[in-house]
């Protein structure tokens, strides 16, 4: 499989506080990776360093053809950041749809402003994307006229509108009412099958178990466990991981360690 994303020694500090410690990571094209871990473990910061909403303090990131190196002394130039970021799409926990635009305009705005597509082109694509997330009939609604789940699906269509190489999901269902979670996960599962590369930060372990090719467990700014869902959920040797999994999905993890002393 082709390597799509490579992180080497990526660190991020907020002031004196290290949030990411020397992260190494390689992701193949077309895979779905789920990142789990307790809050404050650096999951969201990891995503924000990949789309450069946060600029890493050190290390290097390669995505597709582009590579950026980071150092505390100087930030990469804004043009390089923009070009790099345009290869990514991000879905936020609180969807952050633009409230003054309809669903369709939300999905058109990126291509029209950042990629300079004509409005007609952008609209044709946006309509197709909204169809893809099952919201073709809702294109002229404003975000406040949509349910939380529909809003988040528009958020997914918007993230895909820039035709990113990788889609990043930052707890996409955490702010939703429980009965709305399913429709969003359904869209994500379909995406995962369509061959797009996804990184999903989530607490939905069941989703992870069914959809993920790979699960990362993060704790205190480090990747503590890395493997298939089965390996991480059921057979982890790390006490922290087992505790976390059993608290989040009691029936999911094996209650007894797979090994004994």
């Amino acid at each position: 499989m082709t390597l799509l994303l490579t992180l080497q020694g990526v660190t991020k500090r907020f002031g004196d506080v290290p949030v990411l410690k020397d992260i190494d990571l390689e992701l193949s094209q077309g895979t779905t990776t789920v990142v789990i871990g307790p809050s404050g473990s650096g999951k969201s910061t990891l995503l924000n360093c990949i789309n450069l909403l946060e600029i890493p303090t050190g290390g290097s990131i390669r995505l597709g053809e582009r590579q950026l190196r980071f150092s505390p002394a100087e930030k990469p130039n804004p043009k390089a950041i923009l070009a790099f970021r345009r290869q990514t799409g991000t879905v936020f926990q609180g969807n952050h749809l633009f409230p003054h635009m309809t669903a369709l305009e939300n999905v058109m705005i990126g291509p029209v402003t950042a990629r300079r597509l004509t409005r007609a082109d952008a609209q044709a694509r946006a309509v197709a994307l909204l169809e893809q997330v099952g919201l073709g009939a809702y294109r002229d609604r404003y975000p406040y006229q949509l349910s939380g789940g529909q809003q988040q699906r528009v958020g997914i269509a918007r993230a895909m509108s820039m035709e990113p190489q990788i889609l990043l999901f930052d707890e996409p269902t955490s702010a939703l009412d429980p009965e709305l979670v399913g429709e969003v996960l359904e869209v994500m599962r379909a995406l995962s099958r369509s061959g797009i590369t996804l990184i999903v930060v989530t607490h939905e372990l069941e989703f992870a178990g069914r959809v993920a090719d790979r699960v990362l467990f993060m704790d205190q700014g480090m990747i503590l466990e890395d493997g298939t869902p089965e390996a991480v959920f059921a057979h982890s040797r790390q006490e922290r991981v087992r505790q976390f999994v059993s608290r989040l999905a009691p029936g999911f993890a094996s209650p007894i360690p797979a090994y004994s002393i």
Partner: protein
Amino acid sequence: MAPERFDRIMEIVSMSLLPLLKGTVLYTIPISLLSFALGLVLAWVIALAGLSANAYIRIPARVYVWIIRCTPILVQLFLIFYGLPSFGILLSPFASIVISLTISEAAYSSEIMRAAILSIPRGQWRAGYALGMSGSQNFIRVILPQASRICVPSLGNQFITLFKTSSLAALVTLPDLFGAAKLIAASTFEPMLLYLIAGTYYLVLCSALTIWQSRLERRLGAYQT
């Protein structure tokens, strides 16, 4: 009320009608509109400067707002009209009142604009950046449309306040709505009557502005957050 008194009142009301109307149309309305328009342009520049990350741009803007907001507009007006001539700068009464209203309007409105821009949640910026927009694209397409709707009610209030404050024009000799009333009051010795009439003019005009403002607000409130 004695019939002579009643006749006198009617006479003064009817003779004051035209001068007050003239004062309104020739001075009060143009002064208000002009200073509001110029004030908004200046306010926009000051608001942006006040938000700048560059301290050499930001601090002068903040100092400007501080000084103008913390001194009476009447003092500013008198400095311009009575003070500047001693430096050889002679401004017409009309220019003086427009300049002083513009200066203070800019300070107050810039704060409204600055606050509106700051009130847009950080997530909106992040979403725009995540779509690959540059800072200025983000500002123009995402932040500004939302911020301007937030501004409208407060700026409407500003205009109503400005409209009334334009009566300071009378203190630099202009026969605006208030100035005209003042002149007639002085010549007829009927201050109570004249200032009541002038007050009624302001009340009617500002009520119309209030209605227009609430209509505008309703039209811009097409979406909710």
